[in-house]
């Protein structure tokens, strides 16, 4: 087992060296030093002390001297701090802040301004006027360059602002839509069922209380009515599940598939026993990155499918196995059912697609399953079984990270 990596991809060099800002900084530093040498060469001795300290000009009046020293120092320090803040901002979000090189230019401009003020402090006691002049020259270069490059940016910035406003508007629209959908779901959940209950109950009351007065034909009609109502109720239930499964909040974490299977088996106990079905997992199942409830939905639907759609006289059998490769887990659900024709293998995941008119079902189960798998950032498909009639559903999910890295992964996804 490899130790949990703190960064998503391993690098040999420390991260900051690879950062563009570091390289730009190095270039600028080189240019500044090169400039100094150039000044020396053309007879402008950058490190020479000439004349009298600036203090002299302030008449050696302590209050005047300290007024200049303190204010110049504070201005310089503030400039430096501002540029550090900007640099940090660019550093942390180099991918998210558009135009980040403009920030860099601006930062450089501010740094050099800061040094200009520091030099004002230095020359009060040390008459290094060439150096002070040189730093002013660098500042002038940075200022003029920044001043020029930001002019063509004006239309881009304006466009960015209008884009941001537009995307904010779209976000509000989506939010509104979500709220409408929420209200719609609520209304379906609460209002659509009440009339069905009335229909069902009063049909039953007719059968119970007035059964003797009814002809067999009338009773059969009432039974059919009941069956329709039951079917409508199942449709509403499944549609609601489909509508809500894509919307509940989700935090992916490490989930044991064995645990999921155990839960689902007990949830489906009656159904499995009624159909005399066999649900087996010969090998222990691995851990995946997922959500226990959504995985239960996936297991329940795929197992339910497997045991529901069998040729008459066959004892249903669903075998669950899993393969792990690299960082994914593929779960296989192999059944001995009636199978799915090649042509229909894509279609069956769509809403309201049903293969069997004889078998019960709303045609929503697999759509729910697919939606659940998609929310787990996985994929689902179906294939035939070699030499047998059944089908094999596969679900590909991300494998659980190592135990130590699991909480970090949870945070990244959530």
């Amino acid at each position, binding site marked *: 087992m490899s130790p949990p990596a703190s960064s998503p991809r391993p690098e040999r060099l420390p991260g900051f060296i690879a950062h563009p800002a570091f390289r730009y900084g190095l270039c600028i530093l080189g240019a500044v030093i090169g400039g100094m040498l150039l000044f020396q060469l053309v007879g402008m001795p950058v490190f020479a002390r000439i004349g009298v300290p600036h203090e002299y000009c302030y008449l050696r009046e302590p209050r005047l001297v300290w007024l200049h020293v303190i204010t110049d120092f504070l201005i310089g320090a503030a400039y430096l701090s501002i540029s550090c803040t900007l640099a940090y901002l660019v550093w942390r979000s180099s991918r998210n802040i558009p135009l980040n090189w403009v920030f860099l230019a601006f930062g450089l401009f501010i740094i050099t301004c800061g040094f200009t003020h520091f030099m004002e402090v230095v020359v009060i006691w040390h008459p290094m006027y060439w150096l002070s002049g040189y730093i002013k020259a660098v500042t002038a270069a940075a200022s003029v360059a920044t001043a020029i490059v930001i002019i063509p940016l004006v239309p881009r910035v304006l466009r960015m602002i209008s884009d941001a406003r537009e995307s904010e508007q779209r976000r509000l629209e989506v939010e509104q839509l979500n709220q409408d959908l929420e209200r719609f*779901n609520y209304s379906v959940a*609460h209002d659509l*069922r009440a009339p069905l209950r*009335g229909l069902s109950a009063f049909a039953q*009351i007719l059968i119970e209380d007035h059964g003797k007065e009814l002809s067999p034909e009338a009773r059969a009609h009432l039974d059919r009515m009941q069956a329709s*109502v039951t079917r409508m109720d199942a449709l509403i239930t499944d549609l609601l599940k489909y509508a*809500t499964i894509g919307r*509940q909040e989700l935090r992916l974490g490490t989930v044991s598939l064995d645990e999921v299977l155990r839960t689902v088996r007990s949830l489906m106990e009656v159904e499995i026993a009624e159909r005399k079905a066999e649900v087996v997992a010969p090998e222990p199942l691995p851990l995946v990155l997922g959500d226990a409830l959504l995985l239960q939905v996936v297991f329940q639907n795929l197992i339910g499918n497997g045991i529901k759609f069998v040729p008459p006289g066959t004892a249903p059998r669903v075998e669950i196995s899993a393969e792990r490769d690299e960082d994914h887990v593929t779960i296989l659900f192999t059944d001995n059912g009636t199978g799915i024709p090649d042509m229909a293998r894509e279609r069956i995941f769509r809403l309201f697609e049903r293969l069997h008119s004889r078998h019960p079902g709303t045609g929503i189960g697999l759509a729910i399953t697919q939606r659940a798998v998609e929310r787990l950032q996985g994929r689902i498909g179906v294939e035939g079984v070699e030499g047998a009639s059944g089908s094999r559903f596969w679900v590909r999910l991300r494998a659980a990270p190592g135990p130590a890295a699991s909480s970090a992964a949870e945070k990244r996804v959530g």
Partner: protein
Amino acid sequence: MTKKVLLVAEDDENDALLLERALRRAGSEFQLIRVPDGEQAVAYLAGLPPYSDRSAHPPADLLLLDLKMPRMDGFEVLRWRAAQTVHSFPVIVFSSSTLERDVRQAYELGASSYAVKPLRSERLDAFARALIAWWGSFNVTGSRLPM
């Protein structure tokens, strides 16, 4: 001992009728009182007019609460109850909704129990029997402790 008072807050006539029938068939000894919305449920529970005469409108031992009702819905009734200093009666939410968030919210607001209204009448009969067996007999409320 006087009959326990079951207050049913239910706006749907059919549902109210069917529930009453199911309780009767299950041999209910509850004194059944029905109010058609949340506002009246609160008025009844608080003893406000037109329910201020406690001899005619005895205090409820148990509230069976629908969620979606006009004027004041079930959640608002639960919120009102949570704000009271004394709430000695249990509240059973009896709703169509199977939405997880409705169930969770109901419990968060202090519901004692949550049951989904059954579709089939035999399930409703079973619900009525369970209601009588547990809430009508074993369950003890603050206002009526066993002697």
